């Protein structure tokens, strides 16, 4: 009798233990998942399209996603990303919000600190330089908040980086400039980049400078214009005065390229000095059509926004613990000029 009771108790314990572990795996099946992470380990091996859709919507419903760019209102680049994210997150029932730092790095840090304290579910960050958000990304991960970094890579990795492969784009646009200048038997170029310690400037120079050096080109000037069209115009005006035989000016963004193009036109050197850059918004395309700029490594700006939206879904569906697995994911780019800019969706975006 006692043996039967013992067996019954053991069976009951086994059954109860099995039920509770089964229910735990339903909530936290992903390795490293915590109680704060959603109950999902991705989709099953075989799916029914309606129920998998329900799974994704259930996973994303009510999640608070905060996008913090360095500037938003009136800035085509980040508005394009924001609109892609907003459309996707709204469609999935998540709560998407944008916090505009209006160029103020201190304000950006405060905004992010506040969002971390409010325990948002995910942050999408566009950081002004490689180090300024190091502590914020670490804190976010400690609190189980996913971090997706867009277009300006940081030294402290987020869960995912989505953006342009800036060194490769810099390498290829420099190669284009070298090819065009060699055809003119001219090896003198100048470089005008951003702030200096920002990811785009570092990546651009890492890609472009070796190409110029290997080709035996002379970089007669390298200056920072802080992504300011007026400063780029002033620097270009001064350099052109000293070096009327310059072949090309390379810059790492399209807005300074527009300023440089205007300076070249004012100096009467339109068509003689080329302008080569990264990115190709509608403003740049207008300058291209006017013959003031030459070519750009136009990367997929709308794709970055879509990519960030996919990244967020990926993270929540798999339930990966924040900060434990990190990836860097690039969007494509094309070298566009007057002959092909209308063929590529990457070029001439306007922020819609």
């Amino acid at each position, binding site marked *: 009798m006692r043996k039967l009771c013992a067996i019954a108790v053991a069976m009951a314990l086994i059954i109860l233990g099995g039920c509770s572990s089964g229910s735990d795996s339903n909530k936290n099946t992903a390795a490293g998942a915590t109680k704060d992470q959603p109950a999902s380990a991705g989709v099953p091996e075989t799916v029914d399209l309606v129920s998998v859709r329900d799974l994704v919507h259930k996973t994303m419903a009510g999640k608070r996603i905060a996008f913090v760019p*360095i*500037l938003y*209102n*009136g*800035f*085509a680049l980040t508005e394009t990303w924001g609109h892609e994210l907003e459309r996707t997150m709204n469609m999935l029932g998540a709560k998407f919000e944008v916090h505009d730092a209006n*160029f103020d790095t201190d304000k950006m840090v405060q905004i992010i600190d506040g969002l971390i304290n409010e325990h948002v579910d995910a942050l999408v960050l566009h950081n*002004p330089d490689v180090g300024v958000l190091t502590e914020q990304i670490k804190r976010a991960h400690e609190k189980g908040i996913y971090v997706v970094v867009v277009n300006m890579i940081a030294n402290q990795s987020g869960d995912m980086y989505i953006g342009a492969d800036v060194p490769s784009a810099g390498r290829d646009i420099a190669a284009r400039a070298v090819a065009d200048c060699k055809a003119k038997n001219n090896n003198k170029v100048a470089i005008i980049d951003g*702030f*200096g310690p920002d990811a785009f400037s570092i990546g651009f120079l890492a890609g472009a400078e070796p190409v110029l050096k290997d080709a035996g080109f002379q970089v*007669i*000037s*390298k*200056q*920072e214009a*802080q*992504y*300011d*069209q*007026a*400063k780029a*115009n*002033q*620097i270009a*005006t*001064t*350099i052109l*005065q*000293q*070096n009327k035989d310059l072949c090309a000016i390379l810059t790492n963004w399209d*807005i300074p390229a*527009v*300023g440089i193009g*205007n300076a070249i*036109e*004012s100096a009467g050197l339109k068509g003689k000095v080329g302008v080569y850059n990264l990115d190709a918004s509608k*403003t740049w395309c*207008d300058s291209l059509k*006017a013959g003031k700029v030459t070519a750009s490594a136009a990367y997929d700006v709308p794709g970055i926004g879509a990519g960030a939206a996919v990244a967020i879904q990926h993270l929540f569906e798999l339930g990966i613990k924040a900060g434990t697995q990190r990836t860097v994911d690039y969007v494509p780019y094309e070298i566009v000029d007057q002959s092909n800019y209308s063929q590529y969706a990457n070029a001439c975006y306007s922020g819609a």
Partner: protein
Amino acid sequence: MTTSAAEVRQAGRASLRDRLATIEQGTLVMGLTVVLLLVGVFTTRGFATFGNFRVVLMLSSALGIVSVGQSIVILGKGVDLSVAVVAALAAQGSVELFANRGFSEGEAVALVLAMGLGMGLFNGWLVAYAEVPALFATLGTMALFDGVVRVNLLPTHLYQLPPNSHIVRWMGQGHVLGIPAPIVLAGIVFIGAWLFIAYTSPGRLIRAMGDNPEAARLMGAPIRPLLVSTYVISAVLATIAGLVILGKDGGYSTIYGAGQDILFESITVAVIGGVSLSGGKGSIFGVFSGAALVAVIVNVLTLNNFGLLARNFTRGLVLIIAVAADAWLHPRDEETAKSEDL
């Protein structure tokens, strides 16, 4: 009575400082600029060309215009921190009105000039009648103007000059008898301001008001209207400078905080040129000297491939040296702090 060698040396040292102290700071700064020009001629390829001097004048025209306005405010014992914002809103507002809101270019320019005038009147009213200290008043209006105008008028931070622009394009790229229009406009502003401060009653009273407001008031000077007028002049000149920059560069961007430098630079130029931040002291010639010195420094550094950090460091160092030199040449005590030339 015999005089020791030490006393003779001491007298010599004092007389050198006294001699220098009698020379207006603007003249000293112009002398320094000439020295720097000579250094540039002998050390920098491409510096000593007519084309380069033309570029230097053209690139510093807008700064010179803003600095004149800022200096008039400082002469009156104030400061205007909203100049950069006023310039940006004027430039971008003119494009928005002309390209997107159906106004003709003339109407757009007139409207932004009126907007600048209004901003100046508001600044002046705050300082003169509401008696808010100038530093705080214009710090507040810097953000207020930006917010109000952007919410109601400007959907973006980047504007390009429309291809069918004539007036603003001429202001930035036109010529008068072969001289670039920005240089001509800056020249008119400098000469007009010099005549105003030196030879008109309101101009002289602005200096008197800055030197000793109480004495000026007792003399019967209309202090409040004069104060308002200084801020109106500053805002209107900032508006014109914004349009010149737009015309010259072909666009106006405030992305990543672009365009804000003109505030610091306008104050730097004024102080380097001898316009005292305590008011009542300085000249328009000094402002011209300060603008010339800053422009030559930036030009020499750029031609020698010095980057942004070196340029900022040099500008800051020159400002500190100018302030320190002023303090050494014109030591302050209770008496000199209250009244100087008056």
